[in-house]
């Protein structure tokens, strides 16, 4: 077992343990803390798998953004000093059922993939590339550039050196749809936040007038 595998197992265990602790714990802020551990460990797993851009995004958006907002929301809305959530047994059963179904779906998907043939399907070029890298140093991540190209609709990693002359499709359409979607959400959020304040102002005017 190499040091990398050891680290991978360690972070995988922390991710699983953190997720279970989120479910078991009753204190909301502790839940957020365990969520940080789980999500941070997933980011570490991405780093170990050489997906550095995804890992950094995971840290920035999920750990640094979402969970901080969650804690902020809890602090603003909590009525007592340490807010507790007590789930009823029915909720537990329901949650467990959904969880088991989800697990079954993931397992079915994972076992449907033919993992054995990935090396041959990827082509000899990639195998040779991997071998040349492995003989020197462990491969580095540096996935930001190919990702950026793919989001712009260009796939040099597939198209260069291919003999058919056909161009692969990137993710430009998906990227644009996601961007427009986020823009709509932003404008909607701004509108909702402003509208409420305007109603308050109207009510105040009526009250005084």
């Amino acid at each position, binding site marked *: 077992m190499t*040091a990398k595998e050891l680290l991978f197992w360690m972070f995988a265990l922390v991710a699983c343990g953190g997720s279970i602790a989120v479910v078991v714990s009753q*204190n909301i*802020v*502790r839940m957020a*803390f365990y969520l*940080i551990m789980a999500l*941070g460990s997933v980011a570490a797993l991405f780093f170990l798998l050489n997906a*550095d*851009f995804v890992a*950094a*995004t995971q*840290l*920035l958006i999920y*750990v*640094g*953004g979402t*969970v*901080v*907002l969650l*804690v*902020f929301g809890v*602090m*603003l809305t909590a009525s007592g*000093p*340490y807010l507790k959530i007590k789930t009823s047994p029915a909720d537990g059963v329901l949650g467990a059922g959904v969880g088991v179904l989800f697990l079954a779906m993931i397992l079915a998907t994972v076992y449907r993939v033919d993992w054995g043939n990935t090396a041959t399907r990827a082509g000899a070029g990639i195998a040779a*590339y991997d071998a*040349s*890298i492995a003989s020197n*140093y*462990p491969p*580095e*991540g*540096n996935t*930001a*550039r190919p990702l950026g*190209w793919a989001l*712009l609709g*260009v796939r*040099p990693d597939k198209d*260069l*050196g291919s003999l058919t002359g056909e161009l692969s499709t990137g993710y430009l359409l998906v990227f644009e749809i996601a961007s427009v979607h986020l823009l709509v959400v932003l404008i909607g959020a701004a509108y909702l936040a402003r509208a409420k304040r305007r109603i308050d102002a109207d009510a105040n005017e009526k009250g005084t007038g």
Partner: protein
Amino acid sequence: MPAIFADGSIAKFLDDAWRHLPGWVPNISPAIAAFIHAFLLINFFAVVPLFFIWLERKVSGRIQDRLGPTRVGGKFGWLQGLADGIKLIQKEDLVPAAADSMLFRSAPFLVCVASFAAFMVLPFSDGWVSVESDIGLFIALAILSLEVFGIVLAGYSSGSKWSLYGGMREAAQMVSYEIPLAICAIVPVIAVGSLNLIEISNVQAGWLPNWLLFHDPFTFLAFFVFFTVATAGCKRAPFDLAEAESELVGGFHTEYSGMRWSFFFMAEYASMFLVSGIASILFLGGWHTGIGPVDQVLVDMRASGTGADGFVIASYLANLVGMAIFMVKGSLLVFVQVWVRWTLPRLRIDQVMLTCLKYLVPISCFLFLGASLWPVVLTQTLGRTTVLEMAPPLGELLSKPAAKPGERAPRIQGSRAKAGDASDRQRFAVARALGGDE
């Protein structure tokens, strides 16, 4: 023995050394290299606050017309920080009865880990970085954004009103200030076309106009916005609402004592240096002097060290000089932060939020837009990419062909050449096809 100066990194040196060992010895050189990096960084992380706390005391003393520490460690009191540290270790480690003990105890570590981990991607000189990543800047900003979480947890778990207010202020402040910070960091990235901190610094070699600060009016303004926002991000005065002692006793750290309390300050002073270092890399030329001939000599010295063999202490020396320059620049920016703290009064919390949301965010958005349009407008009107005709384009020093065949290509291409020649050619071909300026 000179081989230690020949290799670009500790990891490579150890890996080469391991090849001389018999085959049955397991290759644990990456682990050893990681350990050495971590050891060096954690010492740096611990010593930097010691120096800056001393600096802060001396500077604040001078600004307030007094002497500051004068007794411990001779005339200048430079051992005062160490004396304080010894005092803090001896203090009792208190946990209030109303506190959520587990979160209360772990919050200072969370803050320290977040601040320390960001040093992994901070280059001190060309190649002198623990983890060289193509998205170093992005990783640094992502890790820095975790620091707030420890502060918020500390405020919440203390079970005290003052701490809760401090934590809430910090959360509100950080969530808003992260936006202009990221946008301003992108402005120089647009000019360079890379998120790799080493590449960003290396294109600024040469005379002063090559610094990204003077690249165009938008980067010039972006530096000041970035530095303001970074100061707020380290919760330094005039933005230190989270620990406003005149209203909140001590804010989020009211209930802390001893070492746990000092961890917050270690992290704060280390982050101050970190954001100052990033600012000096992004805008102030990093480890370059800003004097053309000097930089040329240093760049040539470094290039001599990347050859296959030979005695290359020159490269090591060049990197040492580069590190000294980088540290001076970073420390100067930290000095400015200290100076500002003891000069300006603290803002109110609504003023802090107003400054960010109504002024800094629109300004940084405008700078971002301007920086994107600037090269287009310039090439359309003047037909070149710089305003001054005399000024060389960015990275000119480094784009000169290598003097001798067999020597590695200069650094800016070298970092990409690692991926193998074939894929490198592909990348440049694609970049040309896309109309990029690689």
